[in-house]
């Protein structure tokens, strides 16, 4: 199941209010902010994961995605800007 990160009503980033242990059913309630990376869209998270799995090589990622190097680098630059905005 996909983790929703945006409020369907007002488009604000959602917070976590409850966590549950799948083993003993212990529940923790609170108001926790999502980590920066989890605030990104699923596609962006996958992109970062692929970047990590490619040992940080944009060239390798471009090869795997059958796209050119500047296309991948541009996407990375856009993502860096997005993360910087989320951190501020």
């Amino acid at each position, binding site marked *: 199941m996909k983790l929703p990160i945006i409020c369907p009503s007002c488009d604000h980033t959602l917070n976590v209010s409850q966590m549950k242990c799948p083993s003993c059913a212990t529940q923790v309630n609170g108001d926790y902010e999502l980590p920066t990376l989890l605030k990104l869209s699923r596609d962006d998270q996958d992109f970062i994961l692929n970047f990590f799995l490619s040992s940080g090589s944009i060239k390798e990622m471009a090869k795997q995605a*059958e*796209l*050119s*190097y*500047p*296309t991948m*680098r*541009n996407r990375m*630059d*856009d993502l860096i800007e997005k993360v910087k905005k989320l951190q501020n």
Partner: protein
Amino acid sequence: MNWKTIFNPFGKFNDIHLLIVGIVFFILNIFGCYYAENVNDSIFHLSHLEDNQTIWDVLKINSLSTVFAIIVLFILALFLNNKTRIIDIINTVLISNIPMIIIMPISGMSFLKNATLNITKSLGNPNQIETINLIVVTIFGLATLPFMIYSFVLYYNGFQTATNIKKWQHIVLFAVVSLLLTIVSQTIL
């Protein structure tokens, strides 16, 4: 290959492959220009080759105008995005010229040359212009238009992919620099 790739091959294809294709067409363009008695004195512009000029002059002027365009665009690209690679700018200049290179041999055909010459000679007296010559030149002009537009689209998309520009101010700056580049290149070459 989809429409997106046709209009922006820079987003999909490997830079080395694009460079090889660009260089092959650059060389073909020298022969095409010589056959059509034209010379590329700036990107997207052709001038008539003088009678005493040889294929070496075509090679020299075509090379200089291309290198000049690459240098100017690369300086602009670095100003807009310091991560820009020179190979992406070289590919932008070489690949965007291909549609114009493809139609080059048509402009060298004798019937079109004669029609253009006839119209040029009769400019002082428009009544002497033959209708058939006007039709030939108009048809060629209309046939050239899509190639020219495609060329501009490739030029913009190539630069956009190389630099990742998005702001309208950057796009306007790119257009202004391209225009100045064309004017200066035609003036000095």
